[in-house]
């Protein structure tokens, strides 16, 4: 008989693994990917491919030549970061900007902290915000949907949130709404915006998949959406001529993508359910504050990054409910 293997219990292990979880998230992004290919065509494919390849390549190079560690570029997380970064970009952005975004996302957002599991901020959002601040014009010129064969040369316009922000200076909400895409268009994604953020319906299908597969729990995405609906709802009830209604807020901008895919990133979100709810409520509040009172039309990216910074604090002070009370005189 061969020697027996001896190790401490448990001797049974789940079949789950990090790559499986990452690929699960990617599968859930397929509907959103399909919708954005439908609306943005070739340009969507170019920037998604460039973003994924760049993220994987930069992770490989940094891991191999700078950190000199085990290669980790194929564990799925770099592919996912690449995919999510691409989803936050306008379809007509030059591909070299995408590469810079990928370098910042992986290089600064992730590897400087020590790689997967150690980063404080969501890497894809770090990349996006870097591009947003560095190339404000390219990052805010949004191609109109359904120009499937155009890339850099596409006709551009403003996002619904951008129109709202600009327009409120001299118009009422009700006047502005007549120029906006219909709610149905907003719901299926026929509007201007980042390639992956427009399709509320597709992203919600992705959310349902993630919940069924138990890859994430409802706490973060549902709480963010409810919080945004609640606060925009209060403002709307106070004065519907100066504030857009909650449905408009839910269906526009990067809120769905942020709530479902960015805020739920395992590494940069809290460890306890209570912590998750607090984190999500604040993301919702900050998003509304920036959208309604801030300088930018959309705030969910900053809201998530700001709350990412509070996650270690939430983990330190928000503990799970322990089993059993303290024994007296014990």
């Amino acid at each position, binding site marked *: 008989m061969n020697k027996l293997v001896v190790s401490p219990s448990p001797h*049974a292990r789940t079949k789950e693994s990090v790559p499986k979880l990452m690929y699960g998230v990617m599968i859930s992004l397929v509907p959103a990917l399909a919708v954005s290919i439908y609306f943005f065509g070739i340009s969507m494919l170019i920037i998604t491919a460039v973003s994924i390849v760049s993220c994987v390549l930069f992770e490989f190079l940094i891991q191999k030549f700078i950190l000199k560690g085990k290669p980790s570029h194929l564990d799925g997380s770099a592919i996912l970061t690449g995919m999510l970064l691409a989803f936050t970009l306008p379809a007509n952005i030059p591909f070299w900007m995408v590469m810079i975004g990928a370098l910042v996302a992986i290089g600064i957002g992730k590897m400087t902290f020590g790689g*997967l599991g150690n980063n404080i901020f969501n890497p894809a959002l770090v990349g996006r915000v870097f591009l947003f601040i560095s190339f404000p014009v390219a990052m805010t010129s949004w191609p109109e949907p359904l120009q499937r064969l155009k890339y850099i040369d596409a006709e551009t316009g403003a996002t619904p949130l951008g129109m709202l922000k600009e327009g409120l200076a001299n118009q009422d909400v009700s006047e502005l709404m007549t120029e906006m895409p219909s709610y149905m268009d907003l719901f299926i994604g026929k509007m201007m915006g980042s390639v992956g953020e427009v399709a509320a319906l597709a992203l919600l299908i992705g959310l349902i998949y993630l919940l069924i597969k138990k890859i994430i729990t409802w706490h973060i995405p549902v709480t963010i959406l409810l919080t945004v609906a609640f606060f925009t709802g209060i403002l709307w009830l106070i004065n519907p001529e100066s504030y857009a209604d909650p449905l408009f807020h839910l269906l526009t901008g990067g809120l769905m993508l942020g709530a479902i895919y960015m805020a739920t990133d395992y590494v940069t979100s809290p460890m306890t359910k209570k912590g998750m709810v607090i984190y999500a409520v604040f993301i919702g509040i900050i998003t509304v504050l920036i959208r309604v009172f801030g300088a930018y039309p959309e705030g969910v990216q900053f809201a998530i990054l700001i709350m990412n910074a509070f996650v270690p604090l939430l983990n330190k002070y928000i503990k799970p409910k322990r089993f059993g009370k303290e024994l007296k005189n014990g």
Partner: protein
Amino acid sequence: MGLLTFSRGGIHPPENKISAGKLIESPGQPEIVIIPVSQHLGAPSKVLVNRGDTVKTGQVIAEPNGFVSTNIHSSVTGKVLKVDLFPDSSGYRRQAVQIQVAEDEWVDGIDLSEDLVKDFNLSTEEIRNKVLQAGIVGLGGATFPSHVKLMTPKGKTAEYLIINGVECEPYLTADHSLMLEKSAEIVVGIRIMMKGLGVEKAIIGIENNKPDAIEVITKASAEYNNIKVQPLKVQYPQGGEKQLVQALLKREVPSGGLPIDVGVVAFNVGTIYAAYLAVQKNRPLIERVVTITGKSVKNPSNFLTRVGTPVSFLVEKAGGLPEDTAKVINGGPMMGKALSNLDVPIVKGSSGILLIKEDEAHRKEMQSCIRCSKCVTVCPMGLEPYLLMTQAEKGMFEDLEDNKVMDCIECGSCAYTCPSSRPLLDYIRLGKAEVGKIIRSRKAV
């Protein structure tokens, strides 16, 4: 009847109850048995026999050495070959009595018939004494001497007797088969233990993956309206004492406390059956049902095994050691101990022997923690395993104590569920050992 379960954490690993439905059989007796004198929690018993002595089945060969200790009986008739140190299932060499087995001859005064005896006239004292004399310990695995549990400490009152028929460990079916075949005896055992404890109410918790057991026990206990059978939703670690009490009564045993702190005393069904035999038939605890199972085992079985029987003997009786065996576990896959040597004896606490194939025997390589929080979600004690592991790794023992590391019941749900295959429980055990030392030294001052 609604299904209950415990409220915090938990997992549902593949059940793999291959040996379910196999009748309890005797594997026969080996040529040599090795009976350790420490088969229970507490002080090892004091050996009463010497080399060359002849012993009979059921004869006391070691007596209690303190209050938390118990009798050890010879499980066979034969000649004592040696009283020496022998390796036990944990790999340590501990004192044991080695006996050459001869033809089975029981000591006098033991009722060996299969007849059901229902004598409820014994006093509480007599019941407690018989339990001690018979060397009964908790057969669920903790092996805490049962007579101690029958003495309610001053200032506490026992209100409920809870019987653990959960058997939440995958693969194991020893308790299941016992409930199916000995339901009437178990119900008498429950009545006796209720009297021994002085309680009026008993609840038996059984997971609903054993509907046949729920049915027969319900039928057997129908005439007593203070014995309730409660089906439970399948969830590991429901057989944990604290989880079971919480599932059945919604009472949480305090941190560092015992079930008696919430008015409960809990026994495993196997223990209850042993108590029946002890009190009604004067039979000491010298045999128990042991499941022998595994995906490539030829005849997965539930063997009524004499204490001291070598594991290798049972493996032979179940069809021999399969070629692809790479790991042998004493117990279930979640909390059992891996054996390095198959000559170690079955003891009172052995509920099963599990043979694991090569492809399932090895751990996967550890990856970085991705902070998915699954370990926090599944922890039935409301702890943060990822944090405890890091703090144990870094020697932060004060923080470990503050984060309730001593509450860990070592169920392994965290390590089971970790997608990065991190050895969470290994580090938590190290942390518990160190924090335990610190707490003891603080008390000593």
